């Protein structure tokens, strides 16, 4: 679970960015607060970053900063920006974001409306993933939707993790607000564990990709 860490000065050296840039990106929330890991070293306090994530992020910011303004970039990376996305039922199925089965279960769960905001989409996306993998049955799907409905808005920006466990045939779904180690007794089987942030990013990528396809399709037709 432990990611490899990189010290701030090594990061600046490797990527060639300056302190000013790094702090500006942090201010604009292009780099999440949770990635700044403070540790005491023999030379005093030092800041470390998860190496793989930060290098990827710095690279994508550097590539895009010439074409997009920092605010637009912030919008793209920010976990909150996604909350503006609203899709209709038809769009969902057309774009193949979730399967019909998932949508039916979701609608049985209680939402009768035809437009889905990002909370709904994320819940469906995560559910879809579990159903497709054959790990979850319909009754358990309700539990999953329930916990996501109750708390998903609180956990977007954190490193939260969704757990699906089962013991002696009794299943349980819960969310840990931070990516921490959990220790269970022997009888517990962790069936699936998903980082919500990863789910958010995957879903965002999925929606963006399908919007792009849509646009290019329209271009071809016109």
């Amino acid at each position, binding site marked *: 679970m432990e990611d490899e860490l990189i010290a701030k000065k090594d990061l600046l050296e490797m990527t*060639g960015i*300056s302190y000013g840039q790094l702090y500006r990106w942090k*201010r604009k929330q292009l780099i999440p607060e949770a990635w700044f890991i403070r540790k005491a070293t023999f*030379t*005093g*306090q030092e800041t470390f970053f998860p190496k793989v994530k930060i290098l990827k992020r710095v690279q994508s910011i550097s590539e895009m900063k010439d074409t997009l303004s920092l605010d637009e970039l912030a919008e793209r990376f920010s976990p909150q920006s996604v909350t503006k996305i609203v899709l209709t039922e038809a769009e969902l199925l057309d774009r193949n974001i979730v399967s019909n089965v998932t949508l039916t279960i979701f609608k049985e769960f209680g939402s009768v409306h035809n437009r889905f905001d990002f909370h709904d989409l994320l819940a469906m996306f995560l559910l879809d993933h579990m159903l497709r993998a054959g790990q979850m049955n319909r009754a358990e799907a309700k539990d999953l939707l329930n916990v996501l409905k109750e708390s998903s808005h609180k956990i977007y920006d954190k490193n939260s993790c969704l757990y699906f466990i089962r013991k002696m045939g009794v299943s349980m779904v819960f969310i840990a607000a931070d990516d921490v180690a959990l220790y269970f007794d022997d009888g517990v089987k962790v069936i699936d564990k998903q980082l919500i942030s990863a789910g958010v990013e995957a879903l965002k990528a999925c929606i963006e990709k399908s919007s792009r396809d849509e646009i290019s399709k329209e271009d071809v037709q016109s």
Partner: protein
Amino acid sequence: MNQEHKQNLKVMGETQSSGGVFDKVSIMGECTINGSVEANSCKVMGECMVSGDLSSDYFRNMGEVTIGGRLAAAESRFMGETRVKGDCALKQASIYGELFAERNLTGEDLTIRGMLHAAGDVSLETLDMRGGINVDGMLNCDDIDITLKINTDNYVNEIGAGRVSVKRKHAIFSAAPTKRFRAETIEGDHVSLEFTEAKIVRGVDVEIADGCAIDRVEYSGSYKTSGHFDVGKVVRLDNQTN
């Protein structure tokens, strides 16, 4: 925005209100607001307690204001004493009195002539500080100008910036401050310090001048010194690009 006519809230004397949406709020007496206030302009000359959030395009406090929730203001002048228990979201702000931010403060341009106390992090684009500053978290600001003028405890836990300059004001008539500016770590591309006490200073171009006491300096570009100073260890980091 809806164009419907909003009411003004004007208080002279002592009253209680349950908040709401207003055009102009002006309080000249004493007012307790149980709830949140949204206004285009808000001026307080007396005393005001808001239990919820206060958001106003223009906010001016010449008296005493306590806000239980968040404060959001595009343009603000703090001339009296202001206490904010939640986050402060400002744009253009100047402090002539005292501002106590008990959580994080974000803004663009901040001028301090009075005193700022922030218990959380402060993030800004530019900071022009000639009063007193006390930040328990991190001060993240592109351009920091600090002039030590008043003899007070100036402390910032951590500074991250593009450019940092700390200077001591030499006045002809008033005595120069005797307390140093203190920080745990200072990081920036261009760091120029005078009369500063810090554990670590990291930067590309670092200048250490009179009255500094720094435990460790790490630099990758240039290192200049002048006057009497006390620096523990100086390390040059090599291979840095740029």
